[in-house]
């Protein structure tokens, strides 16, 4: 059984607190969770909401149909009540009775604010609400109390314990919702946190960035652990500084990283070329939001791919990969550091606001699966001054020694075209050899990229193709459609550039219709595939309103076009 609950209100009212607490309780009661956030670019007021989908079986995306609405204000009821199922229920504080008035669905009014006053702190009404929901869903109150202990301390914890009990004791019936089977404990995490943890597992020692929604939570996570991990997280004066700092740190031999969102990434583009021509390993995360310019700061889109494919003037090799869920965020980021150092190349990790703010229950990360492969040269065996940073070698990769670590050897990197030593050159011959040396990394990366994931009918009549954050919704849509007897499959791309082609070429042979599903206006993945293979898509499902396409919409739009 699969439930969908929405908590709505204005910014600053406490919907985040209730959402976080409820998710944690549901997680510890062994439910599978997928939650996502819809918020405005403001600190107080407006209309924000969190959707928590919880289930006894794994869930991979959000959906539109709601079972429960937790309304902190009347706007939440007006905005969302028609998404409730026929027997869906609205929960609201009894204070809102008059303002809500006639609703389209059943409303259960709860004395949560009153309860908070009774325990002596009006602020804890969210915890009273939590207590009431624990009662309603027949969850374990002990787990609820334990969860409070994770977030509060001392007197604050004490009053919250009173508040949860106050809510739990509100006299009402509980619903019989399905109970999940006991299972191995999962973690509840979003993809930005997965990226940050993956970077830490890979040994990131320096993260320089400028705060920008929705990428900031990567920096927040690293910063909150910097003291314990003894790493340096530095807020740069701008994104140009951020990426140049990271490049300097990498040149000097440590694993460094920067992250940003579209606007900040635009500022970084010149330095992408710097990483390329200096052959400095670099991992950059770009968490997409709708552009151009400031766009929709807190919303979602997949519209940076075309830009990122060639971002920077001139030609450089690069690898581009996109996150499809919180689980792969970890492994993919850790791997990105290895690839960056193996080929002395730029690796760009794409994510988007949807996954950056979507909490998912997943298996705990397996740190044994992370390998650290530095591919550094220890500098032995060179005569004094013999080392050349850009030495031509058989495989095209020059030995990389760490400056300062080898007496008698110096390392010179240059943004100008340079010779093997790193010195400026104007030679046509050297230029050609250097460009070929750098660009040959693309064919090496072609052997590293992974094919997209495939879901659905073995020989699909309709082939859906997406990338990144639409993975979950494509997976569930295909399952539903297959169940209804529709012959359909979906490819979800993770590694994007160099473009892996095998799976696409294989599956499209069966398909009468190929459809690209993307969160942008121009169909940027379809353009990339056409550019690399000459193959065009028959139909497109595109969405660019800043909101992630949901399960019902994918299914409906697929049915429209097939």
């Amino acid at each position, binding site marked *: 059984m699969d439930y969908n609950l929405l908590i709505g209100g204005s910014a600053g009212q406490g919907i985040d607190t209730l959402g976080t607490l409820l998710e944690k309780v549901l997680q510890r009661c062994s439910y599978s969770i997928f939650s996502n956030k819809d918020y405005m670019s403001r600190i107080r007021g407006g209309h924000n909401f969190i959707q928590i989908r919880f289930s006894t079986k794994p869930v991979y995306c959000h959906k539109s149909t709601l079972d429960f609405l937790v309304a902190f204000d009347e706007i939440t009821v007006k905005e969302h009540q028609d998404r409730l199922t026929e027997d869906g229920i609205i929960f609201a504080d009894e204070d809102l009775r008059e303002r809500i008035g006639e609703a389209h669905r059943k409303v259960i009014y709860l004395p949560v604010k009153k309860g908070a006053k009774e325990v002596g702190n009006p602020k804890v009404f969210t915890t009273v609400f939590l207590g009431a929901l624990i009662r309603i869903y027949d969850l374990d109150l002990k787990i609820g109390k334990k969860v409070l202990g994770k977030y509060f301390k001392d007197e604050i914890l004490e009053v919250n314990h009173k508040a949860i009990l106050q809510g739990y004791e509100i006299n009402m019936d509980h619903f019989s919702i399905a109970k999940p089977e006991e299972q191995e404990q999962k973690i509840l995490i979003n993809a930005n946190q997965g990226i940050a943890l993956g970077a830490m597992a890979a040994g990131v020692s320096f993260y320089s960035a400028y705060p920008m929604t929705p990428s900031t939570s990567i920096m927040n996570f690293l910063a909150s652990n910097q003291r314990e*991990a003894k790493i340096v997280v530095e807020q*740069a004066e701008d994104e140009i500084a951020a990426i140049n700092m990271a490049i300097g740190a990498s040149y000097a031999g440590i694993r460094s990283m920067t992250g940003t969102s579209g606007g900040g990434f635009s500022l970084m583009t010149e330095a992408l070329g710097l990483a390329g021509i200096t052959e400095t390993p670099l991992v950059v995360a770009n968490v997409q939001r709708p552009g151009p310019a400031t766009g929709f700061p807190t919303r979602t889109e997949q519209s940076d791919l075309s830009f990122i494919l060639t971002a920077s003037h001139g030609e450089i090799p690069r690898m581009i990969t996109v996150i499809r869920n919180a689980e792969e965020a970890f492994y993919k980021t850790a791997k990105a550091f290895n690839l960056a150092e193996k080929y002395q190349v730029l690796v760009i990790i794409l994510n988007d606001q949807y996954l950056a703010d979507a909490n998912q229950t997943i298996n705990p990360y397996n740190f044994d699966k992370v390998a*650290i492969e530095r591919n550094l040269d220890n500098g032995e065996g060179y005569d004094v001054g013999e080392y050349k940073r850009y030495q031509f070698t058989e495989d095209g990769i020059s030995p990389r020694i760490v400056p300062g670590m080898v007496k008698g050897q110096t390392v010179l990197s240059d943004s100008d075209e340079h010779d093997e030593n790193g010195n400026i050159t104007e030679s046509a011959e050297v230029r050609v050899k250097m460009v070929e040396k750098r660009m040959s990394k693309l064919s090496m990366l072609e052997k590293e990229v992974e094919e997209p994931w495939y879901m659905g009918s073995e020989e699909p009549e309709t082939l859906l193709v997406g990338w990144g954050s639409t993975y979950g919704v494509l997976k569930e849509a295909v399952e539903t459609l297959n169940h209804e007897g529709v012959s359909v499959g979906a490819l979800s791309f993770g590694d994007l550039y160099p473009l892996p082609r095998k799976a696409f070429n294989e599956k499209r042979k069966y398909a009468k219709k190929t459809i690209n599903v993307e969160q942008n206006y121009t169909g940027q993945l379809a353009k990339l595939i056409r550019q690399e293979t000459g193959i065009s898509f028959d139909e497109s499902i595109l969405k660019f309103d800043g909101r992630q396409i949901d399960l019902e919409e994918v299914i409906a739009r697929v049915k429209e076009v097939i």
Partner: protein
Amino acid sequence: MDRQNPFHCQEEKAWCPGCGNHGLLEGIKEALDQLEKDPHEVVVCSGIGQAAKLPHYINANGFNGLHGRSIPPALGIKVANPDLTVIIHSGDGDSYGEGGNHLIHNIRRNPDITHFVHDNQIYGLTKGQASPTTRQGHVTGIQTEGVQLEPFNPIALAISLDCSFVARTFMGDKEHMVKIMKEAIQHKGYALVDIFQPCVVFNKINTFKWYKENTYKLDDDYDPTDKIAAFQKSQEYDDGIPIGVIYKKEKPSFLEGIEYLKDQPSLVKRDLNPDNAKSFMEGFF
């Protein structure tokens, strides 16, 4: 010469004959040699411009980055490996124009980096346009009516931000320059050294002779820790420009300020192990 200076380098220099950069290059090599540094212990960072070619002409580690971006890579390098002596050589356009934001914020950040600005008050590489330090009224091919903008005063800016070491020297006085360079390199924290040098092709006003006649050395009893006095010195120009250490402020450098890094091996010397990060997953259960 008793020994061959290990910082000497055979690379052919792409600077004009008579360019102030030549003297400056000789000065930094001498300063580093006198400080008994080894080439592998030194990194010379630069942006783009005539001055910024310097890393190619010295036997040391070098990072010749993007225009205006000499400081951020230097910061990253210093964070990675504090044992390295990190020096920046870049011009007035690169340091004060294109890279102005980094200058401001790294003075605030106070990393242990020495920043030598080759200040010839003109753009050389792009052939003679005004730089931030070009004086008002100076006519160029672009500023055809004479420079209209107020000149940028790096010394006053640095003092106002409490920069931990602010100095000015003139490459025409090698002894003074080398002495200042050594002091700046030995200083723990961000050291900004504005070095006057002539551009023999594009600046016909601020010539070698002009600098010689228009600069004077600070008295021995000048107190560089007096901020107000230092600020007053920074305002002197038309009646003679003071050279020497103008302002000093003792304070912890950027890395010294990160308390949890104390007594830790430098980042570049750490052994990386994925398991070290395992505990950071606990919060997600």
